[in-house]
């Protein structure tokens, strides 16, 4: 019992050595004596002491390997999620996800994870930081980080017997002492606790501000750190400014000048009317359609436009881009937009269906009138003049004429060669809901009535 008590009082027996050889020899003896809770303390890593102490190889490399692989997975996942999944970058038609471009960052993340792991796992395995150690209380022990060596056999070891330990260490040591258990507890001053509590609370302020900013709504405009970027000293387009007499911030062209490329002196080409005649306004059905005899509409094509196969081909292409979505590829008024509108019964909200372009009324338009409609629209249809160049609009007119001549014929033309199948192009009346919409029931002949 008394022996046990004595063991409780001391942390262990510490022996000091002056050189590498003696500490190694003592370490071997302690190892052979079967102690487990002991250690050799040296100012630098002594070569061969691991074997002398019987230290087992550390698992640190495996931890680092594991975290390195984790880093690789994280690096790849991060890049895939951010650039190929959540916010896809389209760059020069390259694939959304291509490994070579992701190698550098993946590599860096692997290194980052492994290096941090090597450091922090080293601390963890060594149970550091460990600021309060009874050994630090021994004045003699301080030289161990400079030029001396020490072995401490701890009292916690089940086989610990102070006298036996002293006998084992005695052969090589130059000095020996008992290390008392550290009973002093250095209490931190009160102000330290107060300051730390305040600092800890303060660290939550930025986080809570971020959380508030994320989830709360605010009437106030965003805070401008440096306002000169958001509010620049300049006038924006289409705004007013009292600085000019007319109150606009933008200027009109100088009187009597025409901007480059905006000269409209060829009336046939630009307006579809005879040279020098009046330029018609936008057409609407209720205002008597195209204005009747008031305008000298062009019957054929402007002299600047050569009607040939290339023009028709161009017209087919442009028509497909700009007109076909509503009027249908064959001009029957069954473009994708029209069908969809039919399927959802858009007329209830005021939708106006595109007209078929093969109707007699459409056929009756002069070329000039068709051009005018393509440029400025008619009633509910908007104009495409701002998007399509005049020559391309004439190409579209030529193409519309071509489909009027070839499509929607009530019966096979007499001069059709033998053996050619003729099928009339469907018109809006023939559309059954099954074609317009997959989820609508099939079979009705009155599309409007069947729509849901």
């Amino acid at each position, binding site marked *: 019992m008394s022996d046990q008590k004595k063991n409780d009082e001391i942390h262990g027996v510490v022996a000091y050595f002056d050189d590498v050889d003696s500490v190694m020899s003592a370490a071997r003896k302690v190892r052979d004596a079967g102690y487990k809770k002991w250690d050799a303390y040296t100012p630098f890593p002594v*070569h061969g002491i691991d074997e002398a102490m019987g230290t087992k190889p550390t698992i640190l490399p495996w931890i680092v390997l594991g975290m390195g692989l984790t880093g690789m997975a994280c690096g790849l996942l991060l890049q895939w999620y951010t650039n190929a999944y959540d916010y896809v970058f389209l760059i020069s038609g390259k694939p959304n996800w291509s490994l070579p471009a992701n190698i550098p960052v993946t590599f860096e993340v692997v*290194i980052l994870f492994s290096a941090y792991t090597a450091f922090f796992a080293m601390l963890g395995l060594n149970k550091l930081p460990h600021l309060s150690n009874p050994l630090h209380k021994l004045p003699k022990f301080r030289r161990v980080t400079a030029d001396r060596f020490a072995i401490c056999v701890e009292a916690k070891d089940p086989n610990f017997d102070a006298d036996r330990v002293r006998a084992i260490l005695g052969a090589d040591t130059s000095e020996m002492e008992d290390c008392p258990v550290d009973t002093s507890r250095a209490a931190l001053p009160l102000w330290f606790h107060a300051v730390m509590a305040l600092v800890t609370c303060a660290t939550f302020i930025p986080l809570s501000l971020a959380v508030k900013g994320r989830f709360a709504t605010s009437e106030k405009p965003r805070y401008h*750190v440096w306002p000169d970027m958001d509010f620049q000293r300049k006038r924006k387009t289409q705004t007013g400014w009292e600085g000019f007499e007319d109150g606009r911030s933008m200027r009109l062209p100088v009187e009597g000048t025409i901007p480059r490329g905006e000269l409209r002196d060829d009336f046939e080409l630009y307006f579809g009317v005879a040279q020098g005649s009046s330029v018609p306004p936008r057409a609407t059905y209720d205002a008597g359609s195209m204005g009747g005899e008031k305008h000298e509409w062009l019957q054929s094509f402007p002299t600047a436009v050569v009607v040939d196969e290339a023009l028709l081909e161009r017209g087919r292409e442009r028509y497909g881009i700009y007109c076909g979505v509503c009027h249908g590829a064959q001009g029957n008024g069954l473009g994708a937009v029209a069908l969809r509108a039919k399927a959802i019964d858009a007329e209830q909200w005021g939708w106006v269906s595109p007209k078929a372009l093969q109707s007699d009324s459409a056929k009756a338009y002069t070329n000039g009138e068709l051009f005018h409609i393509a440029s400025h629209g008619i009633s509910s249809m908007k104009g495409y003049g701002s998007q399509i160049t005049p020559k391309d609009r004439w190409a579209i007119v030529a193409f519309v004429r071509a489909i009027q001549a070839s499509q929607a014929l009530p019966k096979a033309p007499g001069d059709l060669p033998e053996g050619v199948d003729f099928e009339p192009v469907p018109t809006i009346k023939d559309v059954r809901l099954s074609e317009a919409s997959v989820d609508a029931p099939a079979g009705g002949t009155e599309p409007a009535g069947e729509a849901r």
Partner: protein
Amino acid sequence: MTITDPSAFGSQPSGEDDPSVRPSLVEGVNEDFSSVTDAVAGIAEIPVERTNRAWIICFAISVSLLGMLGMLILHLITTGVGVWGNNNPAYWGWPIVNFVFWVGIGHAGTLISAILFLTRQNWRTGVNRAAEAMTIFAVVCAGMFPGIHIGRVWVAYWLFPLPNQMAMWPNFRSPLLWDVFAVSTYASVSLLFWYMGMVPDLATFRDRAVNNTRRIAYGIFSLGWTGSSRHWHVYERAYLLLAALATPLVLSVHSVVSFDFAVSQLPGWHTTIFPPYFVAGAIFSGFAMVLTLMIPARQFFGLKHIITMRHIDVMCRILMATGLMVGYAYSIEFFIAWYGGVQYESFAFVNRAFGNYWWAYWIMVTCNVIIPQLFWSKKLRANLWVVMIVSITTNIGMWFERFVIAVTSLSRDFVPSSWGYFSPTWVDVTMFIGSFGLFFTLFLLFLRFLPVVAIAEVKTVMPQAHAHGEDHGESHSAGGSAAAPASRHDA
């Protein structure tokens, strides 16, 4: 800088003339563990009032320059990047040149600590700590430039893949983003590496502390290190792993920096030789900086027996070797420009050497290729004045290399109508000078308060550190055998 001990300059080469006998790593008669500890720890233990005069003067200058840098940054942020000379067509001017310059310098440290550690070049132990510190401070300077170059520094977090109010992510196909990852990984891993190496030495400082402030400060940072052999075991493994990780890292960083240029289409930048060429240049400039710093430091702080003439000799040789590599890269660039037969490329290179910026090009060639040839002579390698001058001209030359690459190519791009001539503003110049203030402030503080030499590591390469088989009956008393030329110990 005033040289307090001129007699030390121009001392004779160390060791024997017989090349088969290696000079010992730690020089001097009767060196032992305690004297090494005393020499290194003594520097940090000088009481404040007895601080070296030269140190105080240098520190005062550095801190003033640092303050100037701070004011300039404020000026830049509140006014905008227009205060720099960067403008069409040279949008990358001095800030990027300075960034590459500093990040290049920051390579030697990790190279010395990691690659030379892995290849068991034990001579590194004398210089690695200071070189690592230099790395970190140089990377700090480097990181500053792109940081303030982005213009709106308050949104610098956009550089990182953080969720933000725009619901956008950065583009991982951009070399500039790779750079963010490479440089920040490099900075933080070097910091870990440096700090971890320092923990045992900080414990030495703690145990020698004469007052409470020092005891607490070093005590906290040494994490309670005792020198336990079980700790050393894990520690050494971790150090080896860190070295193994830092080696490819150090090579990758400057490669990625070179991608900033090489991945673009600009003639003069768009070349495959850039990554190895940049890495060689980085090592070159890094070693030059180590020499520039270590030669005065060893004089002032009495570390001549730890940072020996042999260290300086080896570093001079590395300097010359990397200088030759860089020179090779210069010539191969010209060869490829001619051999590739692309008129834009050949124009870019002819323009480099003979165009508007011919002076910068020839300063670069003179400093980086011609002057280091002096080191073929062993005598000149042993003359510290020569070494000092060559290391400084190398630094100058390497700055000009980056200037030549960045500015000559940009100022003469594909469209002749946008050609221009870059001229820096006073802010450019003073900011670059200020970055030296930042660097030297940190470095001088390091010299003054931290273990300048890896004390524990130096001890491992001393002859007494090795056990002598089983004959422990007659053990050496510490310090007994150091005087002998220890050729068999330093393998």
